């Protein structure tokens, strides 16, 4: 008897194997500079993953993932300066954004505001945080021994260190292992979460909130939890970003950061996790590329990519490739009973 292996399980195993290969092989072939660049790609990929989970699976379009990304970055900065150790700072950079997301989510979802206003509120909160962080340039704006620094931000942050050993700093390779390992782990955990009853309910709510309520689910609670998880993931992205650059400033709260996450998901395809990772890598590569020229502004470039994808590849890269592959494959005989979750939106 052969055990049935679903296409989703195959794709999960392939992506995990590729991620593991990238984790182990890239440090062997890339020089320090390229590996640092790759770490930046991972940080924005984690941000995109938070957006992909929230938007593609929970159906909540947040225009403010940069808020949690930025809070994660600042939390790491404040934590590592005060503790002198990155271990607790990394943990807090997930916990604090998740808690802020839970608080914000409580008012949004239990206040029963419409989806459009969720977008408006998340956008507004990000803008407020941007302005707030810009206005912290005085000596009085400090948390413990960490001075927030206003427009100039917080430079000279310590990189990651071995857990509990603040003197053992990680080099580019070590930082890469932590960052890429985190991306891979988040991907695996999200896939796992989506295959549980909780994931099924979250996707069901995206499909039809009223029906989900009528079968007995408190939609507000599930949205709140999904929003909080997404905030924690974005926060970890911000933490890696801060550790990568050794600094954090108000630009982490910039609207272009939120836009980058949204466009990454659109490019990769809504309703896939790996698509968002691919989209984030493509967008960040184009931003880096546009930095070497002065003809097109990077933000304008992102806008052009968005328009091109919406018109030419509206489903995004991964779903389009997947549709093409299934068209080319010979059709299997009809199944009598199938238990697989189809989570891709029609």
């Amino acid at each position, binding site marked *: 008897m052969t055990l049935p292996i679903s296409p989703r399980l195959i794709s999960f195993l392939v992506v995990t194997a590729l991620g593991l290969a990238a984790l182990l092989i890239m440090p062997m072939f890339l020089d320090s500079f390229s590996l640092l660049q790759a770490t930046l790609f991972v940080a924005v990929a984690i941000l995109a993953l938070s957006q992909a989970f929230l938007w593609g699976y929970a159906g909540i379009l947040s225009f403010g993932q940069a808020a949690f990304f930025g809070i994660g970055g600042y939390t790491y900065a404040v934590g590592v300066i005060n503790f002198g150790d990155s271990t607790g700072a990394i943990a807090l950079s997930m916990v604090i954004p998740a808690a802020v997301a839970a608080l914000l989510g409580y008012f949004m979802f239990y206040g029963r505001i419409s989806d459009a206003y969720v977008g408006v509120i998340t956008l507004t909160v990000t803008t407020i945080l941007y302005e707030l962080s810009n206005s912290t340039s005085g000596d009085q704006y400090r948390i413990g021994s960490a001075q927030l620094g206003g427009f100039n931000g917080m430079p000279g942050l310590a990189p990651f260190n071995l857990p509990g050993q603040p003197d053992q700093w990680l080099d580019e390779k070590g930082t890469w292992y932590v960052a890429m390992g985190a991306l891979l782990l988040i991907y695996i955990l999200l896939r796992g979460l989506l295959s549980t009853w909780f994931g099924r309910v979250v996707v069901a709510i995206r499909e039809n909130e009223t029906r989900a309520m009528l079968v007995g689910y408190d939609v507000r609670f599930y949205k709140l939890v999904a929003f909080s998880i997404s905030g924690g993931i974005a926060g970890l992205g911000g933490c890696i970003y801060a550790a990568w650059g050794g600094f954090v400033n108000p630009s982490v709260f910039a609207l272009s950061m939120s836009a980058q996450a949204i466009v990454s998901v659109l490019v990769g395809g809504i309703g896939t996790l790996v698509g968002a990772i691919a989209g984030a890598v493509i967008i960040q590569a184009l931003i880096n590329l546009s930095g070497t020229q002065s003809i097109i502004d990077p933000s304008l470039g992102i806008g052009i990519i968005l328009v091109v994808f919406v018109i030419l590849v509206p489903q995004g890269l991964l779903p389009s490739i997947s549709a093409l592959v299934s068209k080319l494959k010979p059709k299997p005989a009809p199944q009598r009973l199938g*238990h697989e979750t189809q989570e891709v939106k029609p």
Partner: protein
Amino acid sequence: MTLVPLIDAKSITMRFGGVTAVRNVNFTLAESELRCLIGPNGAGKSTFFKILTGQLHPTEGRVAFRGTDTTRAEPHEIARLGVGIKTQVPNVFDGLTVFDNVLVAAQRKRTGPTARKIVEEVLERVRLTGIASRLVGQLAHGQRQWVEIATVLSQEPDLILLDEPAAGMNNEEVRRTAELIKEINKTQAVIVVEHDMAFIRMIAKTVTVFAQGAVLVEGNVDAVLSDQRVRDVYLGRTAA
């Protein structure tokens, strides 16, 4: 000992601005009862269903389910008490498979293999096993109605509300639906809203007639359907 009714709605009034959709309705339903609600379009039947399921909170009056006040309860709280509803327009998870639609409802109460077993049984019961892996959004209207009925059944509710279950179905499907409702009613209470009088005759014992938001008449199906006032409201004449 006094038996507590399954549903006890007292003096229910629902106003939307200046429009009164439901007017001073008193309604009780006993355990395991099958009741049909009829009435012309706009009579307030679907609004009354929304009040019973918590989708609307009445402007006045009180609703109780087995003695528990549900007047201001949320839809998920009422569902958890044991009320399931198939709405007038198919209300399903279009992007999920038939199996997963039903599983989402079943797993609210049951876990793992037990939930899956219930889903398989329910799908067999409503003859959807053959299309279990199809996306619901790709199905025809009639099939989507069956998916919704299967979803409600897998909730294992004590009271099932069916809003126009036979709408858009062919004669064979209508007959099957009537049989299914009678079978369901062996273990669960059912309230059916329907326009099709032939269908009502197939299933009903007691009928409540709604007209202009109020209960016009209630009683035995034959007596009600031969009542001149009922004929008048269906013909568009003003009720006496």
